[in-house]
């Protein structure tokens, strides 16, 4: 469920980058404050453990497919939310850079979906509430299952909302939700089982590790502040994304606005943020609309033609031009390579 750059718009990617950068800085600060430095190497090595554990898989009976560990929840249980969030962010960064698993611009989205939800929501609100201070086998199983499943569902919903508000896919919101949530329910069950199994193994073999992880009482006291902060941030981000979406893509949101208010558009203030956004958008959207920005009367004349305009001549010129550009790029690349290899030899 790692999102790729190709599926998001700069507005969505940028806002979530900013949001997760803030969260990362906050977690780092928090960690610095109540850190026993013992955790520093432990965090790094546990991040590597997540990669290593993904290399081991098991066969799921009767399906022929195989499952492996995802990671967020187990890290939160072992390290506590702040450290786990940082580890998850670094794991996702490495995955984006080395495995092209999730894009760089989409990194913010991925950190939110796979880091924020399990570490800051599912872990403190579900796992800790169920397991409490005195873990038992049953509680660990229940808590890990519930937290892993719900955390993953939130993440999947995040993917859906982020992709949908970027306006690149044609999938409608409800179809997309129906597509993503059931798949991630299955994945969440597997993840929950693994998490529960590993945690109870550790609990039996080495119970000190678990109590150590959840002990820092200083952090407990404040544990709701970052959550509220995160939720507020999320609300602002979501609001921002939606307003952007409303003005760029007239098909989805405005249609629903029409349904609600009976008007095509909500009257938006021309000045302030809206004005600036609209201005930026007009600049940015200059080219995509290049073909369609005809004078008004012409547009009215060819109304029955499907939007955007269909004209054979123009398409041909476009394809010809594209081919020429590609050829040019190829020649430049080839020339440079020859030039540099000559320089070496």
């Amino acid at each position, binding site marked *: 469920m790692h999102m790729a750059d190709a599926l998001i718009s700069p507005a969505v990617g940028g806002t979530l980058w900013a949001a997760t950068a803030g969260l990362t800085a906050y977690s780092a600060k928090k960690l610095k404050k109540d850190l026993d430095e013992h955790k520093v190497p432990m965090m790094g090595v*546990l991040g590597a453990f997540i990669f290593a554990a993904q290399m081991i898989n098991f066969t799921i009976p009767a399906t022929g497919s195989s499952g492996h560990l995802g990671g967020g929840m187990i890290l939160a249980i072992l390290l506590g939310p702040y450290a786990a969030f940082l580890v998850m962010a670094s794991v996702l960064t490495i995955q984006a850079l080395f495995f092209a698993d999730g894009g760089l611009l989409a990194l913010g989205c991925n950190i939110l979906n796979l880091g924020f939800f399990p570490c800051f929501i599912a872990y403190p609100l579900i796992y800790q509430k169920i397991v409490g201070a005195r873990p038992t086998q049953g509680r660990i199983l229940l808590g890990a299952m519930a937290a892993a499943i719900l955390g993953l569902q939130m993440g999947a919903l995040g993917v859906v909302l982020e992709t949908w508000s970027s306006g690149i896919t044609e999938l409608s919101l409800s179809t997309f939700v129906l597509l993503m949530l059931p798949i991630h329910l299955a994945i969440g069950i597997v993840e929950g089982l693994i998490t529960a199994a590993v945690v109870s193994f550790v609990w039996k073999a080495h119970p000190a590790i678990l109590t150590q992880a959840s002990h820092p009482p200083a952090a407990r006291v404040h544990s709701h502040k970052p959550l509220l902060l995160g939720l507020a941030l999320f609300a602002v981000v979501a609001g921002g994304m939606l307003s952007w979406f409303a003005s760029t893509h007239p098909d989805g949101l405005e249609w629903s606005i029409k349904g609600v208010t009976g008007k095509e558009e909500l009257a938006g203030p021309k000045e302030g943020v809206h004005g600036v956004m609209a201005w930026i958008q007009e600049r940015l959207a200059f*080219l995509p609309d290049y073909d369609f920005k005809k004078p008004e009367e012409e547009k009215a004349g060819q109304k029955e033609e499907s939007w955007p305009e269909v004209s054979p001549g123009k398409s041909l010129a476009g394809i010809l031009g594209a081919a020429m550009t590609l050829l040019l790029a190829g020649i430049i690349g080839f020339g440079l390579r020859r030039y540099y290899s000559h320089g070496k030899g």
Partner: protein
Amino acid sequence: MGKIESALLNIGYLETLSYQQTPLHRLDPRAKLLTTLVFIVAVVSCGKYDITGLIPFIIYPVVLIAVGNLPPGYLARKILLAAPFAFFIGIFNPLLDRAVLVQLGPVGISGGWVSFASIMLRFVLTVSAALILIAGTGLNAVCLALEKMGAPRSFVMQILFLYRYIFVLTDEALRLVRARALRSFQGRGMGFKVFSYMIGQLLLRTLDRAHRIHLAMLSRGFEGKIHLVRPLHLRSRDVAFFLGWSTLFVLMRWYNIPHLLGNAAAGLIR
């Protein structure tokens, strides 16, 4: 399992690529990091049905691959490996958006296929930019750049640590997997129970290892932070690299070069 090992080998290979000495590798990592980000934003900001507008951007990976002496075939394989997610989300577009957008003689191409092609094109461009950043810079230098540009220190340290131990721990995991495979007949022992014990064992060993590493670090004077000692100098060519490419990206975003070229060519033919 061969697949897993080759995936690992792949990270190692990316790392070795970054040790080369080419004009690309000699640039300041900050310049490369920022340029990559500008490139990705420029590509992603293109319109949903834009194909011709995206094509000129290919010049960036092409030039960098050429200058940085990077293997195009290897990068292409990595991109392909990562493609499924974008592909599966994108493939719904042709199914749902069937209005004809482009007419080529008798063949009408629907808007869905156009936007699908656009998604895949973006995917290739953005992913190749990220891979080139790593292959042309190396992770340590990227981390250094991140740190210099104000990323939280503990986050940067975390990435460095993680990266260092990926190789060690994946080796250990592979030994476990191999041992299990050698003892398994007719798929016995490949199920969940053994799996969870294996992961648990690996975790315990990992924690022990973390403890040993910490002790080793303490005895070498570790006091809570890693010192990244390598001076970075922003020279004029780094600035030129960043500004030059950024200007080009903005221009390519403003003027649809294939359109201009195509129209010019069509005019000539007439």
